[in-house]
Structures are given as structure tokens and as C-alpha cells.
């Protein structure tokens, strides 16, 4: 099955995990259709594949969440079939899921040790637990997160750190990370890479899923590529395999992973959005910005720099304490999403699961969640029109599966993200607020999404974009704002900035500073 083992030193460890012909079906979908995988001790084994290729399903099989329909899983030389996640964890497999599974109303420490709290005489040893949590957080480079803090109060990246701490709280021999970097900013990713190296140095195997190829080159030893639930290439050397090769094995075609050109001589329209002196204590202060019709404005900054909060405040999801927001010259009532939507704004929020989706509802109803009223007549909804509109979006964004009557909860992470963004591509949105729009979206669909955003701008829509990926901000935006610690520290045309300049401007501050108290 392997055939072309890499010559990397790190991969000389013994094979700890071997999957042969694993199949897993869901009603109507063959999510895994004969997967082969081989992981060695001390290596970082990357899984690559398009949205819906089956990566998350595969790791859920390993983690004991799903039982495979057929096929063989050998863990440390023995065939296994985990009845539940606890069984997998006890035998040394810890998993960081793509969708965070933290209990929001428990503390950081309680989450980290959920289900295996240190006990004595039946009582939880709180002090001990807090100490060990602090130590793990220290190892993760986040000693500043208090173990007693409620998880609800943490920003997205902080939550990611906590779920990583949970994985480290077990004595695991294999740690599986499903898109751990999707919510992380640049410096955080560096941190993550350092941690992964420490783990592998101890002989721990890591399975790492990411859509960012640069990351895979930096961190990975070997790569296995999945396509439509099948292994299309196994054990490629992570550093040497050319990008075009990886992409074509993933997608079956070649994609030029580039940003669409800014159309030459674009006539950018009048000022659409005017924000002046916007302030929320503890989050951001005195933020002023404008977006013109047809212009894409990007906000760069670390997680916790107040970017998402600014976006949500402009949208009325948070109430501004000072300052004003004007759309086409008219001031909006602070703290009213309804007013913002009526004025033509739309926002794709940062956290798709908690902020954007009705998981049990069909795709089309999620896509039309903000617009179903427009297709309705006398209050009666028009389902066929809604399905048609959603179909168009699914087509544009390469949603898979294409059947818009399927429940959103059964989609892969990247496809759910497309639903969130797609919602605002309908109707007559004049200003699009996008918070991490490509989180978890694969290489091909990402290029597609950039194209769509560029087209919208060409039609006169203003776009305000927040992204942790500096290249994305620089590549897509016409103008860039750099935020640090709740303030705009620089505004410039994208052409005048490069990645290093932005990173220099952005660096400073930590996760906790932007967190709501």
C-alpha cells in the first residue's frame, strides 16, 4: 500500500496506525469509500482533500465517533474498533475536532479535563486540575489564559487553544488535529507548529488536516490525499511534492491558486459606509473607516485585535458606546441588526455553527435565512424559488453535495462555510461584511469564492473583509486597515503593503486583551 516511503528521518519510526479499505456510508453518501492510511510514530502525517472529501469522517472513525462499515483499522499492531470516543482516548488517541466541542459554561480547566478530572476520594482535585491546566496552557504558549475563566468568555482562538489543551491533557500516542489552524492568526500558527514539533520529538504521532498548503510544507512529513472518500495518493513527501501535483491529486484538475485581478481602472463609487469614532470599551476605540461602492477593504490584525468586534458593531450585533455608522449618508441606529440589514448590509459571522447556521434545517433554508421574506408573497414563503436561488449559490460556490434539501448539519465544515457566505450573495446586499469567509474552505473553492467576491465588487457592492490570513487580505482587498489592540494603526492601498510590513504592524498583544470580560 505504501510504496513510496519518504526518506525523512522523522518517518523512520514504526508504523503505529494502519487503515486498510475503510468504508463509511451515511444515508445517501459514501463518505469513505476505501481509505488507506499509514502513520508512523513521531511523524506529522497530513491529510489533504477538498471539502467533503472525507477527512473529518476519517478522523471520526479513528476517534471512535463513527464505526466503519467495513475495512480494517490497526492501532499499534492490533486490529481495533472503538465503540466510543472514550475507548479511543483510553487507548491513546486524542482528537481536536474541526467543530469545537467545548462546554461553553464550564471553565477552561473543567473543559480541558472533561471526563477525566483528577480525583481523590471521589472529589475533583480542583487545585491540582487548575495547576495542570496552567502548565499545559504554558506549554501551548498561552499562560495568560486563566484556567478558571468560563470558555464562553474566550475569543475563538482562545477556544481553539483550550481544545488543544484538552488533547494534551491525555497521555496520547496519536494526536489528531482537524483544521486546528483555521481559526488561528499568523503568530498563533507559529505557536501551533512549535507545539506539534515538541510532540513529535517525544515520538507522538500527529495527523494534521489543513487546507493551507504552506503550513503542510512547514509542519508535515508525509501527505496522504483523499478524493471523494478514496485515497488517491499515500505517503507523499510533504516538502518535496510540487504544489501543482498535490492540487491536481486533490481536485482532479489544475487550479491556479491566485487572486482575481483588480480590474484595471475600476471606477470605485461614492462612499457607501462611513464609520466614525466607533468605540466599545475593552474591545476597540476610535475606529474610523470608509468603504466605497465597489471597493474591497480588508482588515488585518491578530485575533483579539478587535477586528471581529468592529465588524459586529458596524452591523449592529453589538451596540457602539460612541461613534456613528452611516450607510449611504444615513446614520444607522446603534445595536440594531434589523436597521443594518434594511440599509443593505449583510454579515457572514466568524463562528458558523453558533452564529450562523440552523444545523437541522435544509441547506436552502439556511442560504435564504436572510432573504426568504423577499421571495414570499403575502407572508407565504416560496419554497421552489428559494431552492432555485440556493441552487445557484451552490453551483457558484461548488457546494458538495449539491442537493440543497440536505440538512446543513450533514455537510462537511468547508461546505457549511460556503452556506454562511452564500447567504449574503442573494438579494440586494450593498455592503458585505465578511469575517473569515474562507475558514475551512478548500483551495479550489477558495479561488471560486474570491472570484465571486471580486465580481460582486465589480457590480458596485462594497466589501469589508476580516481575515487572519494576511496574503488573503493583501491579495483580495483594494485597501487595507491594520488593527492592533483595538485601534487602526495603518490604512493604505493594498499595493503599498507587503506581508512582512503588515505582520510587523500587527505583532503585539495577546489573546486575552480583546476578549470580552
Amino acid at each position: 500500500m505504501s510504496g513510496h516511503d519518504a526518506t525523512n528521518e522523522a518517518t523512520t519510526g514504526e508504523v503505529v496506525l494502519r487503515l486498510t479499505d475503510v468504508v463509511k456510508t451515511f444515508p445517501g453518501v459514501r463518505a469513505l469509500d476505501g481509505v488507506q492510511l499509514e502513520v508512523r510514530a513521531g511523524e506529522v502525517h497530513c491529510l489533504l482533500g477538498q471539502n467533503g472529501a472525507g477527512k473529518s469522517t476519517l478522523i471520526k472513525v479513528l476517534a471512535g465517533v463513527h464505526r466503519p462499515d467495513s475495512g480494517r483499522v490497526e492501532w499499534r499492531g492490533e486490529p481495533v474498533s472503538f465503540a466510543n470516543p472514550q475507548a479511543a482516548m483510553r487507548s491513546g488517541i486524542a482528537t481536536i475536532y474541526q467543530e469545537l466541542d467545548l462546554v461553553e459554561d464550564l471553565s477552561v480547566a473543567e473543559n480541558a479535563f472533561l471526563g477525566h478530572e483528577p480525583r481523590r476520594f471521589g472529589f475533583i482535585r480542583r487545585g491540582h486540575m487548575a495547576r495542570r491546566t496552567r502548565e499545559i496552557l504554558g506549554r501551548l504558549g498561552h499562560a495568560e489564559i486563566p484556567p478558571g475563566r468560563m470558555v464562553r468568555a474566550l475569543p475563538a482562538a482562545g477556544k481553539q487553544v483550550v481544545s488543544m489543551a484538552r488533547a494534551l491533557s491525555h497521555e496520547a500516542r496519536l494526536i489528531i488535529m482537524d483544521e486546528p489552524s483555521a481559526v488561528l492568526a499568523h503568530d498563533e500558527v507559529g505557536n501551533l507548529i512549535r507545539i506539534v514539533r515538541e510532540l513529535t520529538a517525544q515520538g507522538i504521532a500527529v495527523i494534521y488536516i489543513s487546507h493551507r498548503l504552506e503550513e503542510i510544507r512547514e509542519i508535515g512529513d508525509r501527505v496522504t490525499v483523499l478524493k471523494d472518500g478514496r485515497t488517491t495518493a499515500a505517503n507523499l513527501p510533504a516538502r518535496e511534492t510540487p504544489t501543482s501535483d498535490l492540487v491536481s491529486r486533490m481536485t482532479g484538475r489544475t487550479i491556479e491558486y491566485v487572486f482575481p485581478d483588480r480590474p484595471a481602472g475600476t471606477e470605485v463609487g461614492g462612499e457607501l459606509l462611513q464609520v466614525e469614532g466607533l468605540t466599545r470599551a475593552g474591545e476597540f476605540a476610535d475606529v474610523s473607516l470608509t468603504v466605497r461602492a465597489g471597493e474591497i477593504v480588508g482588515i488585518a490584525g491578530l485575533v483579539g485585535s478587535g477586528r471581529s468586534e468592529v465588524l459586529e458593531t458596524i452591523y449592529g450585533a453589538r451596540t457602539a458606546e460612541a461613534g456613528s455608522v452611516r450607510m449611504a449618508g444615513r446614520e444607522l441606529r446603534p445595536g440594531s441588526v434589523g436597521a443594518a440589514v434594511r440599509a443593505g448590509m449583510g454579515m457572514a459571522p466568524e463562528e458558523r455553527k453558533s452564529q450562523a447556521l440552523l444545523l437541522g434545517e435544509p441547506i436552502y433554508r439556511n442560504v435564504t435565512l436572510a432573504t426568504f421574506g423577499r421571495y414570499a408573497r403575502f407572508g407565504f414563503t416560496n419554497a421552489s424559488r428559494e431552492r432555485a436561488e440556493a441552487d445557484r449559490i451552490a453551483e457558484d460556490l461548488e457546494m458538495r453535495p449539491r442537493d440543497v434539501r440536505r440538512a446543513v448539519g450533514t455537510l462537511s465544515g468547508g461546505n457549511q462555510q460556503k452556506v454562511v457566505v452564500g447567504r449574503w450573495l442573494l438579494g440586494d446586499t450593498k455592503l458585505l461584511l465578511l469575517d473569515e469567509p474562507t475558514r475551512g474552505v478548500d483551495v479550489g473553492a477558495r479561488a471560486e469564492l474570491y472570484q465571486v467576491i471580486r465580481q460582486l465588487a465589480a457590480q458596485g457592492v462594497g466589501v469589508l473583509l476580516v481575515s487572519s490570513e494576511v496574503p488573503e487580505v493583501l491579495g483580495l482587498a483594494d485597501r487595507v486597515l491594520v488593527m492592533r489592540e483595538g485601534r487602526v494603526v495603518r490604512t493604505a492601498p493594498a499595493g503599498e503593503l507587503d506581508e512582512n510590513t503588515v505582520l510587523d504592524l500587527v505583532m503585539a498583544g495577546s489573546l486575552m486583551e480583546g476578549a470580552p470580560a
Partner: protein
Amino acid sequence: MSQGTQPTATQPPPVDPAETATVGHRTPTATGRLSWWHGDGGEGAKRNLALIGVLLALFVIGAATRSDLYSNPDWVWANMLSILKLASVVGVVTVGMTFVIIGGGIDLSVGAIVALAGVWCTTVATQNFGAGGMIFTAIVVGVAVGLVNGTLIAYGRLVPFIATLAMLVAARGLAAEISDKQTQISHNGTINGIASTNLLGIPLLVYILAAVVAAGWVLLNRTTFGRRTVAVGGNPEAARLAGINVKLHTLLLYALSGLCCGIAAIMLTAQATSAQAAMANLYELDAIAAVIIGGTLLSGGRGTIVGSLLGVIIFATITNLFAINGLSTEAQNMVKGGIIVAAVLIQQVQFGSITQFFRRNRLTTS
């Protein structure tokens, strides 16, 4: 879901006794539990078939225990109509309750609202205005109390359970005050006739139930109001960020429940030809139980009107079954309790997560 493979982790697990003790509350909710396929209510339809199966089973039990009665088709038909008549008042209340629960709330005050509306529309002063005045009064009282509930919950940020529990006590108190704890006789022939009139051999009350159920079905499945209800109950934050006025909608849901209570008050008053503060006792429990049995998720965001209706009819059938067999109401209540527990257990197995019960009734505000 699970296939024939052996559930064994062959690695001898280093079992920590403390760990096994707590394994139960680790809920891997974030992982693909939504393994059912949802295509325009397919799930609900399947469930409703199961409920119809239960009804058939109850029918068979009836036929087996009282074969003497069931051998007469006329009696069977008349008995079915009496079951539907029995179900009609609670059925109307249940339609409103279904909306409230799908919208992520709960209304414990429905029985009390029925009593208040019934008492208010049978005061001497109101009866002077005739049938129209009485109906108008009952409906206005129901909607008004619902609006108070909704305002407290949506804008006062009270937990629905607490707000409507308080209303339960207060509304019954007010009803006792207004009626001076007396039974108020309805002298209005038109009102009283609502319960005794038959059209084409079917009681008018059953038509009213059918009309309310049909209107509720259309409202839930075909209108923007229904869509908003599902969104607000399923994920209030997502609804809010999509531009839906979550607070206003929550308010309207309780008003709708109040409206149903007003209608039910007229029906019940007509049946008894009187009203009193203690009428419609424990209707909240019957309605909530019917909604649960009907498959509506107690955490909100999913549910069907037809399921709720079947739930009400199942309860009425059980009552009827006990009555025709001359059994005690105590035994009957025990059976009903068992059925509620069974329904919830089925729901948990189906939807797989107890955590949803903890998420319920939380009206997310910024």
C-alpha cells in the same frame, strides 16, 4: 448505525477508575450526530406514522377489551367522535403551545389563561353584549395575557419557565377574583350551542379544532412567520444576525399561544355552559405532553403540528379507553406518565443529546 463489528479496543486499556466513573457525561456533541436525512419534513412524517401506529394499537386494545361495544359500527363511530370532541379544547391549546416550544420557549400558563378568558367572558356585564361580545372578550383577554408573557420574556429577559409559571398563578388568582370563586353560568344560547351543534353528524367543536390545526399547519410550514419561528428556536443568534427581530417574534409567539387559549376558553365554556376559576386545570401539562409525544424538540427549532395533534388524540383515546373499561383515573394518569417518558426517551435516542435540554429556553441576547 452500528454494524456487526466487535466493540473491542484490543489494547488493554489502562483503566483509571476515576475516569470510567465520569465517562457518562462526556458528550461528543460536535461530531456528526445528525445522521438522519432531512428532506422537507421527512423525519416528521416518519414519526407521525409511528404515532398513527400507536393509535391503531390503542384501537385494537379497545376492541379486544370491549368487543361487545366495538362490534357495533355505529357505536365505534360515535365513540371516535366523542374522542375527537374530548381532544378538541386541549388540541386548540396545543397548537399554540407547539409554536411556543418550536420557538425555543414554553408556556405553563395556558390552562390559567383559558380559565381567565372563560371567566371574563361569562361575567354578567360581558354576557350583556351577546355572543359576539363574549367571543371578542375571551380572545382579547387571551392575546393580552400572551402579550404580557411575551413582553416579560422577550424584553424583560425572564426565563420562559419562570415568567409563565408566575402568570399561571396570577391569572388563576385574577380569575378567582373576577368570579368571586363562583361558577358563572353562561346564559347565551349561541355560545352554549357551539358545544351541542353537529354539522353533517360531526360536532362543531371538532370543526373548530380542524380549522385551528389547519391554520397552524399553514402558518408553520408555509409562511414567513413559521420560518422565523423555526429559526428563532433553532439558533436565536443566527436568526438575529440574519436580520430577524428575535425579540418581537418571541413576543408574537406567546400572543399566538394566548389567542389559542382564548378560542379554547369559548369552547370549554360552551361545553360546560359555565366558567369558573378552576376550569382547564392542568391543561398546560396535557398540551406540553402532547407536543413532546408529537416529536417537537423541547429545545426548540424543530417540530410538527400534525404530531402534536396526534399526541392530543392519543391522550384522549387513552382517557376514553379507561372510561369504557370503567377503570380509575389514577391508573390512567400513571399510563399517561409512562407514555410521556417513553416519548422523551425515543426523542433522546433519535436526536442523541441531552445537552440540548440544557440549551433550551435560553434567549440569546448580545
